[in-house]
């Protein structure tokens, strides 16, 4: 069906466009302008903003941890449906179905679940399959698993590591590899309570740095488009900036993505020994062109932290608000779910909020800083519209700053920053750049040949209102949202990469599972038929 979106302001930084024009779609793809043709369906976008569907590269939306958070906090969802936002997390997208609808309402069409431990991949894909409208993908977590640590300890070849990483990607049907506090979970099982980049996992004698470097090299050599996605050691503590800086330096010019950098933006200055180090971090990121980061912005309000950094979550459990949690000493990384309430009157939380803002505003290149709240760890993804508004208006930020503890603002540089994001920069940061970072050539832009994932917004001066409810959203060329309300709820697919590997590794893994678990390694795989939807997966090409 030939569809035309008429006369909108097309903001497509990937193709260098910011101009009034039409978008033509046919058979699920964007096509060249059809001069003289009659569209079967036509949508008026005059006076509106047209962008590609947005892409969220780091949001915890599915899997054991996310589901356990639901089970931990039923009281945050009790009550009648048309309840005003008085219930904590009532708007956060709780069941799987709501997540897809809420994301699509904001014009998001692809979301990445960034933390799937290999044994939990089947569970994660089942949950993702029940999230409507959006396309999705997972990142498989390595770096605390016995097999990899054993390979490094045994000084096995880079080829063996590559084959193991490729095997993991295939078994878990993921788009990339994530490492979360490399070695930290394994060390925690042996009673370590601190774990930094040069600390060594006792049973294996390998350091966190070695694990990160080994995985970084393997991912690059395999041609997996997405660089190694790193959750550094020492998340959330005063002085964590040093760890982030050391990790950036360790990247050695190879591509590296640092997750939720805001949680590493803390120095030790000032009376409380807690301050913003965002300026230092931003400078380092600006200088290191091989490095990309996502922010992990904190917003005030009740949320729940969901993380496979079990050491961090174990230590954080005594600050849980409300006072309860779940800590899993599982296979490899484990997990921790700790509810938390960020309060605007709290010195530390106010600094955290400012650090995220500083990172957004001080990192120059919107193609290397990515828009996330590390949902739900910094804030639910439903706060995205408010964050966009803050980035686009220094006056709005000043209003917020005026309500926050002055001593907290004094240990940051935020009050002095005047930069305002343009729509072009927002589009680069939330569309063009994520598509490129993930190797998704078919989206994040509005050029001919792209899949027809398109978001149309009212050009409202209230940018939060604008981004909260898209006027129109198209997914694969079909209308899925009108005025923020889903109009149909078909299901998207999960994107995966499958780099080449030696079959000898398959035999080796089979034997390993028999020996270690007394179980078949088929157990942990994700068969097509398990998902219960037609064509649930889509293959993304590797670079080689």
């Amino acid at each position: 069906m030939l569809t035309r979106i008429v006369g909108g302001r097309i903001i497509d930084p990937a193709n260098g466009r910011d101009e009034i024009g039409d978008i033509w779609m046919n058979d699920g793809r964007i096509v060249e302008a059809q001069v003289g043709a009659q569209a079967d369906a036509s949508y008026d976008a005059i006076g509106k903003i047209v962008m590609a569907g947005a892409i969220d590269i780091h949001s915890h939306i599915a899997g054991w941890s996310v589901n356990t958070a639901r089970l931990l906090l039923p009281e945050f969802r009790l009550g009648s449906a048309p309840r005003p936002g008085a219930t904590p997390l009532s708007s956060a997208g709780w069941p799987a179905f709501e997540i897809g609808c809420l994301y699509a309402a904001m014009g998001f069409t692809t979301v990445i679940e960034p933390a799937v431990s290999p044994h939990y991949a089947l569970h994660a894909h089942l949950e993702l399959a029940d999230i409507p409208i959006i396309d999705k993908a997972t990142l498989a977590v390595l770096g605390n698993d016995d097999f990899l640590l054993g390979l490094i300890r045994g000084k096995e070849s880079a080829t063996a590591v590559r084959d193991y990483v490729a095997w993991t990607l295939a078994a878990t049907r993921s788009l990339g590899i994530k490492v979360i506090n490399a070695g930290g979970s394994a060390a925690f099982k042996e009673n370590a309570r601190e774990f930094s980049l040069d600390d060594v996992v006792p049973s294996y004698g390998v350091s966190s740095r070695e694990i990160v470097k080994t995985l970084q090299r393997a991912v690059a050599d395999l041609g997996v488009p997405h660089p190694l996605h790193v959750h550094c050691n020492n998340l959330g503590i005063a002085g964590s900036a040093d760890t982030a800086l050391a990790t950036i330096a360790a990247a050695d010019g190879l591509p590296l993505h640092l997750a939720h950098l805001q949680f590493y933006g803390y120095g030790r200055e000032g009376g409380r020994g807690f301050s913003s180090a965002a300026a230092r971090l931003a400078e380092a990121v600006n200088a290191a062109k091989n490095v990309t980061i996502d922010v992990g912005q904190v917003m005030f309000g009740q949320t729940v932290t969901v993380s496979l950094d079990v050491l961090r979550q174990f230590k954080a459990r005594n600050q849980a608000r409300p006072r309860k949690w779940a800590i899993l000493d599982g296979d490899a990384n484990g997990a921790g779910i700790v509810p938390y309430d960020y309060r605007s009157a709290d010195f530390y939380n106010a600094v955290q909020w400012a650090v995220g803002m500083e990172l957004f505003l001080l990192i120059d290149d919107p193609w290397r800083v990515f828009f996330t709240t590390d949902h739900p760890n910094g804030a639910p993804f439903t706060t995205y519209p408010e964050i966009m508004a803050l980035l686009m208006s220094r006056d709005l930020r000043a209003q917020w700053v005026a309500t926050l503890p002055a001593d907290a603002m004094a240990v940051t540089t935020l009050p002095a920053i005047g930069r305002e994001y343009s729509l072009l920069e927002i589009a680069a940061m939330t569309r063009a750049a994520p598509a490129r970072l993930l190797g998704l050539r078919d989206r994040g832009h509005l050029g001919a040949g792209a899949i027809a994932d398109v978001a149309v917004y009212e050009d409202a001066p209230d940018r939060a209102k604008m981004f909260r409810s898209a006027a129109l959203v198209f997914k694969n060329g079909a209308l899925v949202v009108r005025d923020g309300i889903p109009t149909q709820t078909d299901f998207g697919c999960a994107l995966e990469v499958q780099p080449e590997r030696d079959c000898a590794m398959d035999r080796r893994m089979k034997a390993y599972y028999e020996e270690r678990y007394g179980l078949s390694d088929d157990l942990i795989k994700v068969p097509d038929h398990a998902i219960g939807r037609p064509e649930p997966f889509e293959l993304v090409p590797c670079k080689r």
Partner: protein
Amino acid sequence: MVQAWIDGMPAALSTATAAAARLLDASRQPLVAGLGTDIAGARAAVALAQRIGACVDHMNADALLRDLDVMREAGAMLTTPNETRMRADTLLLGGPGLIEAWSELPRHLFGPTSVADDRRGTERRVFWLCPGRQTGADDKVTVIGRDSGELPAVLAVLRARIKGHPTGEVSVSVQLLDELVGALKTARFGVAAWSAAALDALTIEMLCGIVNDLNATTRFSGLPLAPSDNAMGVLQVCAWMTGFPMRTGFGRAYPDHDRWQYGAARLVESGETDCVLWISAYRAAPPQWHGDPQMIALAPADARFPRSPRVHIAVGAPGRDHDSIEHCAMIGTLAAVTATHRSEALSVADAITSIVAHLSAEPLSC
């Protein structure tokens, strides 16, 4: 050929599913209970319940929700059976019912560990508190206390002595308890295990509290044994589809979770429910209530009920007659299981799909 019966008389499958749909359409407060099924069956059952405004409960929800209540009211540290098997050098079993819950427990957990610094197994110290008249304990196990009724008091005193607090008398000698305290504190990776089917929530909370306290200086975790009939798998499905565990009602415009109000036995015995969809595919589990509600049963062909169900559709066993996805207890997550004796038997998911096809057109609205 799929077997089905209407009021005890053999019927064609399509007639039976149509009859089931008519019963559900006519019902004022339907209940989907048992829920002994695989992930696909659970997804279909929860979707059906949402559509017709039913309540959902699982036959093992009582036990499951005790563990869940402890986590969602106090917090919990958890591990998996496989991690326990491989790593736990100290095991603290609490109360009776563990071997009933996991018959393989002695084989997996009473021998040496599989993993250690030097990659050889180390001896595992096993302590069993108040096991009751337990069969299956062997000479590798140190039993402390006997009568299971003593367990709450023993745990309370044990917890206090771990923290160095003064304690009163209890049925177990102070000496023995202090030896246990010493062993627990010198554990390199200890695990406390229990079966919620045999304990109450406060006792479980005390055991979880001991685990948490021990983590002040050493590593310790907790292993609640998973109830049968894929209870853990069904729990995951309920949570991601509705935001809540089982014992949730969909009769209002929103999911309403209440472990008392939506318990199947209470709904049946009070007469609040007028039609039950009973699902038990792994075995012919008998419903645990007193009463003869109008019933649609998705259960093995040889399942027997006190009164003939209005409709009985024979279903196969997941993982035997057809491929299944279900909770794999050993690794503590969902896993794909290939059918061991593949047959033509109907799966719960397919049975529900057939029933849904006959439901009246409009989904419930309030």
